[in-house]
């Protein structure tokens, strides 16, 4: 349940011992403890495409943090950063990542637009960022889990690989929104379906604890730039995880 947070605490402690200053000095490196980048499941369909050097279409579906308006134009949002990072890993393969982020939608509402927004693009991989609006709205866990299952089934039935992305972390929102049971539900659904869950929440918690990205001490006009950096790190680490899953 809270396995990742325990690991993360250990990781944070270890990083403090080994690298007392680097994380502060090089925020652009997007470092995370290695446990957070462990991937135990495979993405077979994507691996096949990449192996055959055929064009790859990825759809990123999700909410406001997928759309990425906080950073500015869409090429600063994490889906585009993912495309850039993947292109660097696989220069011989044409890769495109479509951004289908629509703010303030529940997971059920996202599933309802799967046919038009996701399936219609004929992707080989779906990156599905879900759970924030459900937690904010207090959607029943059963309904949340059922919606996730419906989306995963749609993708699997069409031989599309799927990666789940959990919530954004913020120290302060955690006092007013209870993400815990929604995070547990995401982990459990991923576990039961053998679907990879990208631990964005724990990564952002780690960056917050390491003071890599601190919005508190930043002037207002700087904040969009900082948001773009976070999105860039999310895109890069996600690309790293995907590379591990296709190897």
């Amino acid at each position, binding site marked *: 349940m*809270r396995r990742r947070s325990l690991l993360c605490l250990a990781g944070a402690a270890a990083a403090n011992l080994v690298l007392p200053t680097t994380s502060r000095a090089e925020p652009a490196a997007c470092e995370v403890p290695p446990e957070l980048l462990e991937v135990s499941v495979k993405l077979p369909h994507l691996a096949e495409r990449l192996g055959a050097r055929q064009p790859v279409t990825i759809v990123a579906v999700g909410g406001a943090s997928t759309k990425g308006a*906080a950073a500015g134009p869409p090429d600063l949002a994490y889906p585009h950063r993912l495309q850039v990072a993947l292109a660097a890993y696989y220069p011989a393969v044409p890769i495109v990542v479509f951004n289908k982020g629509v703010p303030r939608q529940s997971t059920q509402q996202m599933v309802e637009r799967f046919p038009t927004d996701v399936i219609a693009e004929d992707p080989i991989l779906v990156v599905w960022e879900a759970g924030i609006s459900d937690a904010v709205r207090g959607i029943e866990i*059963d309904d949340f889990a059922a919606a996730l299952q419906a989306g995963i089934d749609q993708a699997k039935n069409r031989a599309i690989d799927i990666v789940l992305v959990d919530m954004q972390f*913020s120290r302060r929102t955690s006092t*007013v929104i209870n993400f815990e049971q929604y995070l547990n539900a995401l982990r*459990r659904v991923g576990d039961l379906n053998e679907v990879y869950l990208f631990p964005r929440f724990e990564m952002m918690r780690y960056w917050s604890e390491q003071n890599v990205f601190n919005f508190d001490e930043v002037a207002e006009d700087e904040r969009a730039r900082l948001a773009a950096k976070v999105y860039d790190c999310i895109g890069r680490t996600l690309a790293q995880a995907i590379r591990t899953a296709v190897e």
Partner: protein
Amino acid sequence: MPEPSTPRDLRLDFFRGVSLILIFIDHIPENILSYFTLQAVAFFDAAEVFIFISGFTAALVYGRRLADKGALYATAQVLRRAWQLYVAHIFLFVLFIAEVSYTATVFNNPMYNEEMRVTDFLEEPHIAVIKALLLEFQPNFLDILPLYILMLVIFPAILLGMQRHWLLVLVPSAIVYLIVQIFDISVPAYPEGHVWYFNPLAWQFLFVAGAVLGNRLTQGKSLAGPMRLVYPVAATVFLAAFTVKVSWTIHGVWEPFPGLFLKELWPVNKNNLSPIRLVTFFALVLLVATLVPRQARFLGSAAARPLVQCGQQSLEIFCLGILLSALGHFILAEYDSATVMQLAVNAAGIAMMFLTAKMIDWYKALDRMPVPQPAAARRGDKVAR
């Protein structure tokens, strides 16, 4: 109020006290101690214990008042209690508003602006406040008191119904519960799209079941006979559920360990009080009622005393627990959430709950104490005059 003829059943106070402490622990998100509460080993959690015992004790306390002083008096007493709870709930709500407003003011991260709209209601306070007064606005963790208040409001009807025949109350209650299970009905709340976290149409059954059981016992009905028959079944059900749930908890921490029947049974619905929760909880009630006798010596021990006192002052301690868990979480989020700090927050919170219960107990004892001397002096005065 203990009476010489029927000494207070300390088991009720003790286990209600335990449930209040567990609710406090579970309400601090990501609390390391919550690995050691009921929810880690059972399909149900402290909320079931609290609601069930509340129904049970309500039947004992107000049943006696009904017998002594009539229906009108008993009803007035129940409604007075409901009013106290309502006021406590509004007080907690005001504190919640303060916390959210503070968070909204100091929060300046654009990445959350669009989605983390927990502060939306601050844009329409005229509606939000009315919805809170109507119990329709139930922020995080302020959701169990509205259920309890509603249960007390309907309790006079339950009490009078039980006086005629207990089945008159239990059967309709069970039917409503079953309808909720079959048709998945929920009760809408505020803001739009929210529901009552503890669906009162489902959870009422647990409260009523507790009340009916309490009522049967005050009527002098012994349940020892049927209990002995069901005991082996209850033990089997509880142990099976325990094994399954513990396997899930271990699986959550260490993936290679298999989660038994995870695919078949998860998720277990809490909002509508899933039958798995209900049945396994009743199994535990049976086991505890059988294994822990009323005269059990530990109930009177010094070690059990703080928990018994918490259970006896349940309204105050419940509210304090909610307040302390919010405060504790706030401290962990704002300053430091390391394990040592978590343990310190837990320990401080529990100590404050114990101390407050002790203080209220002491205060009430003083209140009850007869004051003979001034009366005697006054009589003496009169004589002298």
